[in-house]
């Protein structure tokens, strides 16, 4: 499937900050890293809702959704996002970046989060994580 994407069009990623958390340094850097790697990045900005993210993912025909979380709200918000994607019949991987304690990683991946990127993740890892999530 990934090969088809590469031939027809670049991987398209919707990035957003869900909820009130305003830490956007990391997600902006991720946006540039993915863009420099040839992906199409749609950054929705701050204070998004699950509904606004689902709508954008549908409209943009996104291959992946990336959320950034720095406020320890991930255990409540990530499952809410997954449910919203499922309710909309959207089969796109959800990737979470930010401050996620190790013990929470299996909780999130068991719930259906495709991948997690921690602080200071190198550019190649960021790009590979998105590619792998989309290919899966």
């Amino acid at each position, binding site marked *: 499937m990934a090969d088809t994407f590469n031939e027809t069009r670049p991987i398209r990623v919707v990035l957003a900050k869900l909820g009130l958390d305003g830490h*956007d340094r990391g997600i902006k850097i991720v946006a540039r890293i993915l863009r420099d790697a040839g992906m199409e990045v749609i950054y929705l*900005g701050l204070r998004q809702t699950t509904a606004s993210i689902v709508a954008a993912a549908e409209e943009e025909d996104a291959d992946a959704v990336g959320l950034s979380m720095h*406020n320890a709200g991930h255990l409540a918000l990530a499952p809410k996002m997954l449910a919203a994607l499922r309710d909309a019949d959207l089969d796109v991987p959800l990737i979470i970046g930010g401050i996620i304690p190790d013990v929470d990683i299996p909780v999130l991946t068991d719930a259906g989060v495709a991948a997690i990127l921690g602080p200071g993740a190198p550019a190649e890892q960021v790009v590979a994580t998105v590619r792998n999530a989309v290919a899966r």
Partner: protein
Amino acid sequence: MTDARELWQEQFEAATPRPIPFETMSGVPVDPVYGDGPFPGQYPFTRGLHPAGYRSRLWTMRMFAGFGTAEDTNARFRELLRHGGTGLSTAFDMPTLMGYDSDSEWALGEVGRAGVAVDTLADMEDLYAGIDLSAVSTSMTINGPAAILLAMYVAVAEKNGVSRSDLAGTIQNDILKEYQAQKEYIFPPRPSMRIITDMIRFTSAEMPRWHPVSISGYHIREAGSTAAQELAFTLANGFAYVEAALAQGQDVNQFGRRLSFFFNSHSDFFEEIGKFRAARRIWARWMKERYGATDERAMMCRFHTQTAGVSLTAQQPENNIARVALQAMAAALGGTQSLHTDSYDEALALPTEKAARIALRTQQIIAHESGVDLVADPLGGAPYVEWMTDEMERQAELVFAHLDQLGNGSLLEGVYAGIENGYFVGEIADAAYRLERHINAGDRIIVGVNAYTEGSEDDEAHLLRIESETEDYQRKRLESIRHDRDNDLVTRRLAAVTAAAEDPTVNLMPPIIDAVRAYASEEEIVNAMKAVFGVYVEKAIV
């Protein structure tokens, strides 16, 4: 002996020294200052604000704390006071910072997580229970709804018999950097400035020991700016507040004394020290020459410093203790008035009690064991430090010139324009990406991250968990307050807030204080103002 030295000597002798021997560990007596004038305490204050440096008074060790319910944070406050902390600093949770109550849809998953949840005066009563508010200095880190939290603090104190004029502390209340970096805004810039100038006027008249704005570069730096951008954007925001207060007819000598600053201390030791020294010099010059201050106290750039949270690594987290110590040392050598040291586990989660204690101990080691407290501005006169100070000033002046041009001779209008056209967020994002590329390429080494990574697998940090019961507790509490209070009174007092918002000649603080006393919630009061002021929505720029 020069006049400057004689004058300094007089001022120095007027200060009461702390009862410690002013000699090195080996018994060598040392002078309170070395080198040339202008000396510490003399305009333009490059060498420090106080003639005696830290000899008469150490910096305030102010540790930021807040999590869970108000009662949880109250316990942490008492713990910090018991361990020798000398100031309280309050972190609020995201819903509180953004003006939402704990039962708002926006609050899901965020209640009490990154700070304490405050919905009504009742939470504020719990937060400061058993603490004599006339005897501590309190710092509240809140911006968009700052007027409401200040009103609650006044109401709690007066309920406990402490007069508002005896309250000492700082409320961050720096809305301009929210649009530039931290992004915790509610209303658009211009109405936000009206609220802030009302608060400056109110505190100048009624709370002489209170700092109504802490003009903050910290978040600008955390968002990715360079040291010089942090310096320049922060001071430019300061000039904007000064121009706004002057436009309201306030006296620069009066409100100028109450302005304070908040800087980041990052890892490049000499760059940081140069930045701190340049901040004092630039501020003094501009306040005197551009804004006509004549009282030296209105020219002094007093600042709080926090070590750089963004420099803390999730890999090998104990290494962060060393980073924090170096950054704290730079702040002390730069002459900070107060300091927060970060906990080593902050890149992983909210700090544990043990990590917060080590962070406080780090400051105490610097203060009491290193000897930096003996001599004011000990690095002053060193060629590299003086050059770096000049270079920071030069770069900052280029930014001021750009903003001055954007605003046609007004820094206030220049800052508004820079917010509207994306100048600040663009500059910050570019600088952040540039640094990231260097780290990624490996030509800037971050120990344990892109070099010396052996041993990372042993990482095992004890993490603080905030249980989700906090959210339920807070919602139930709010529900019962809404049930028990006099709701007709609340409605009338909220209407009075809206009416005050509509009339720019009325000060908003008194009606807000009345509303919190009736147990109106934070979100209700915010909505009473939103009805007039509207809300700010940022354009998403990468």
